């Protein structure tokens, strides 16, 4: 069976996560070898996923952790006082 581009797109995410069965994966791989468009879709999707996962993109606000633990300290003290 030959699969078309649309079919490949519907499996892009699962393909990236390695969750596609071996047989289907082989078909997708075969398609990718000859389809420049799907190769670019796969590469760009994977690239986008890697970039958004970089720690520099989503950073905790400055002082977040300090403020959280200061508030926790007050709470823990309170809990200690009440038993």
């Amino acid at each position, binding site marked *: 069976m030959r699969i078309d581009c649309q079919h490949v797109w519907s499996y892009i995410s699962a393909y990236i996560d390695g969750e596609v069965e071996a047989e289907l994966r082989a078909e997708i791989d075969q398609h990718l070898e000859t389809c420049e*468009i799907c190769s670019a879709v796969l590469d*760009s999707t994977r690239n986008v*996923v890697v*970039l958004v996962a970089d720690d520099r993109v*989503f950073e*905790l606000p400055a002082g977040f952790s300090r*403020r959280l633990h200061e508030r926790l300290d007050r*709470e823990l003290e309170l809990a200690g006082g009440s038993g």
Partner: protein
Amino acid sequence: MTAPGPESDAEYIRRIMAGERHLFHELIRPCERPIYFLLLSILKNEAEAEDVAQETAIKVFLNLRNFRGDSQFRTWVLSIARNEGLGRLRKLAVRREDSLDAGTDEQTGDYTPAILTSWREVPAEALERKELGEILRQAVEGLPEIYRNVMLLRDIEEMDVRETAHALGISEGAVKVRLHRARALLQRTLAPQLGEFAPKRKGWFGRRA
């Protein structure tokens, strides 16, 4: 100190309940990032997200005895964060449109990707340019909430499918579908914009080196 795995989480909890309350700081520390970003995704406001993150940590401490140990500690914490976030959202009565219009997985969205004839990889070093980070953040923030929540936990906090499903109170199948759509929507939004961040090369048309 070794990284707290499930066993040491249980040990932490036992000792905290036995009176070593200060250990709670270390127990909650690995959860700070996912708590905050999940709440930011739900509330879309940094100050509110931080405030509810603190409330969540306190609630976790006060309810520690109720942790059953049948899920990971972090998963349990995140489900508390989600409930707290949704509670705050109701209180604010500013439910955003996207959380209403994208409330189900049933809708047949258009998931045609951005079609490119070639793709030049954008390396992580390109993140030194502040505007790239800004473009990526805006694209994630622009996703419908149900997709954004899943993407934050799966791709950004690198949680597995099972843990993400538990934390969000949805099925593993829904996690996979939503993640697929989130990634497809991001590719469509971002791929056309990211070309300028790829390393320069000669020529315009998709020839690979």
